[in-house]
C-alpha cells in the first residue's frame, strides 16, 4: 500500500502548491518617466537574484518597449513575489545593442530600478532591488 499512500501525499502537495501559486501570482508594470528622445526602444532585463543581476545567472525576463508613445510602459505578468532588479537602456538607434564609444563608455542612456545610480559601473543589486508583492506592482524608472 505504500506506493498509493505516497502518491496521495504527492497529489495533495501539488494541489496545495497550485492553490498557493494562483493566490501569489504577481505582475509588474515597468513605467518610464523623464524620457527626452521619443524614439527607439527601452531595452530592459529583469533579474530575481544578485548573482543573475551581476551577470552570473539567467535573467527572468527581457523586454523591449517602443519609446515613441506618450506613455512608455511594459507589463510583466506571471511573476513570483520576491525581490527583483531591472537594468534598462534606451536603444536610441534601434540596433538592439547598447551603444558604446570607442573607449567603452555608454553612448545611450541607461538606468536601474529604484532610479539607483552607479559608481564607476552599474548600480549595485542592493541599491536597485525592490519587492514585488502578490497582485499588481508598478516600478517607475527615470531615464534619458
Amino acid at each position, binding site marked *: 500500500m505504500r506506493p498509493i499512500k505516497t502518491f496521495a501525499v504527492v497529489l495533495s502537495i501539488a494541489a496545495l502548491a497550485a492553490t498557493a501559486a494562483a493566490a501569489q501570482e504577481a505582475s509588474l508594470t515597468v513605467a518610464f518617466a523623464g524620457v527626452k528622445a521619443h524614439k527607439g526602444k527601452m531595452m530592459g*532585463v529583469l533579474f530575481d537574484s544578485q548573482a543573475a543581476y551581476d551577470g552570473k545567472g539567467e535573467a527572468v525576463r527581457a523586454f523591449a518597449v517602443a519609446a515613441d508613445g506618450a506613455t512608455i510602459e511594459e507589463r510583466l505578468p506571471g511573476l513570483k513575489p520576491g525581490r527583483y532588479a531591472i*537594468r534598462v*537602456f534606451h536603444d*536610441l*538607434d534601434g540596433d538592439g545593442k*547598447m*551603444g*558604446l*564609444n*570607442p*573607449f*567603452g*563608455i*555608454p*553612448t545611450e542612456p*541607461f538606468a536601474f530600478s529604484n532610479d539607483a*545610480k*552607479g*559608481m*564607476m*559601473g*552599474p548600480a549595485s543589486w542592493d541599491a536597485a532591488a525592490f519587492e514585488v508583492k502578490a497582485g499588481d506592482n508598478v516600478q517607475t524608472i527615470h531615464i534619458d
Partner: protein
Amino acid sequence: MDRRSFLNLGAAAGAGLAAAAWFDPDRVYAQATAPWTLGLADVEDDVAPHKLRRLHGRLPAGLEGALYRNGPAKFRRPGRSVGHWFDGDGMVRAWTLAGGEATLAARFVDTPKRRIETSAKACVMPGFGTKAAPGSQLEGPDDSNAANTSVIRVGDALWALWEGGSPAALDPVSLETKGFAVLRQDLKSMPFSAHPRREASGRLWNFGWWRDQVVVWRLSPQGALEDARIVKLPRASYIHDFTATDRHLIFVLQPWVQERMAMPFNSGFAWRPEQGTQVVVIDKADLDKRRVFELPPFFFFHLGDAWAEADGTIRFDACIDPDPSFAVTGAAKLLSGEASGGPAPRLALVTLGADGKARLEQTSDAAEFPRNDPRYAGLAGNMTVHTVIEPGRPLSRGIATRDWRGGKAQAFDFGLDHLVEEFVFAPRPGGSAAFDGWLVGTTLNLKAKASELHVFDARRVADGPVCSLRAEAALPVSFHGNFVRG
C-alpha cells in the same frame, strides 16, 4: 549591457589611494594665512557684468573683443572639500573690451558635479586628486567633469573644457550652460582635452586621452566635426597638452605612466624616469604615419607651439619639471595654504632632428603657461609669451616673451602683490608680423584684493602694461583662456 572599459574602473576603484594620504581634504582653510592663498579662495556667486575701473593708460584702439578665461573657483563645502587644486568647479570669466571700456562677468559652469555637490553640501565626486565620498554618482566621465581648465570659442558657442570628458557648451553672452556638446552620437562622452591647437586657417585639432590611446579630433574653423580617429601610442603616459606644426601632431610621452585606473585619478600613475621621454610625431595627413624620438625624462603640463624648418627639423618649447611632484602633491597642498617649495618648471626647447635624434635644451627661466601668436600657429617665426615664477613661491609673478630665433627676451615683474595668470596674444588690426599686437592677461592683486586686466604691447613687454584696469571681484587664479576678436 556590456560596459567593458567603463566597468574595469570599478575593479580598480579604491586601490592605490596612498598618494593622497598626506592630504586631509577636511583641513580647515581658515588656518591658511599667506596672502597668496587669496588665489585659491572660494567664490560663492556668479559675478554680474560690471565696468572695470581704469588704473592707468588707455585701452588701445583696435583691441576689441573678449578674453574668455576658465579656472576652478569653488573648492570647499561644509561636509568636505576637494583634495586638489584641479578639482574645483569651473568658473568662466568674460573680460570684454569694447569702445575703450572693459567689463567683467563670470559664471560657474553648471555641471552635474556641481549640482550633486551643491545639493550634498560636500565635495563628494572623485577627480584628478580627490577621492570619491559617499553620495557620489559616476555613471560616465562627465559626471565628474569640472569644466574648469580652459574655454574656447567654437562656432556660436563657448566651450568650457576639462581634459577627461566632453566640452560644456555655454552661451557666449550670458555664459549660461547649455549642456555637454556631443560631437557625434557614437562619440558621446569621448574626452576632449583642454588644449586644442588651432591652425592659422582656423581649423582645430585636439586629442582626448585614454590610457595608451588618444582620439584625435579635427574640427572645421566653424566648429563642425571633420574627423575623429583613434591613435594608439607606445605608452599610457599622462598627456595634458600636445603641440603641432602645420603638418604634424606631436605627442610628448613623459614617464609619468598610468599603471592602473584608480581614484583619485593621479594615484594610478607612477614616475618611471628610467623609461625616458618619448616624442611621437604624427602626420596630420596620415595619422598612421609616425616617427618616435627619445629624450631624457622630464615632467610637463604645457607645450608651446611647434614649427618645422626647411631641412625637416622640428622644434617646440615646453615648460618642464624634473618630476610630477606638483601634480601629485604640490597642487593639492596649495589648497590648504601650503607652498610646496618644490622646483619651478623651466622653459626648454626641444629639437627633433631630421636624423632621428632629439635634443632638449633647458633654460634657467622659471616659466609656465606658454602661448604664441595664433596667426603663426605651427609655423616658423612665432614667438612665445609665458608667465614667470619665482622659485620657492607658489604661482607666477611676471610675464616674459621669447623669440627663439635669437631676439632679445623681455620680461615684466608685477611684484609680490600680484598673482599672474596666463597672457595671450591679440593681433593689431592690419598687422602681420609675429607679436605685432598686444598681450592681454589678468592678475589677482593681493593688496587691493581685486582681479585686474592688463594690456601690454607684445613687442615691448619690459615697458610694463600700457593699460591696467581693476574689477570689483577678487577671483581665484585661473588656468587658460583665449582672446576672441569682437
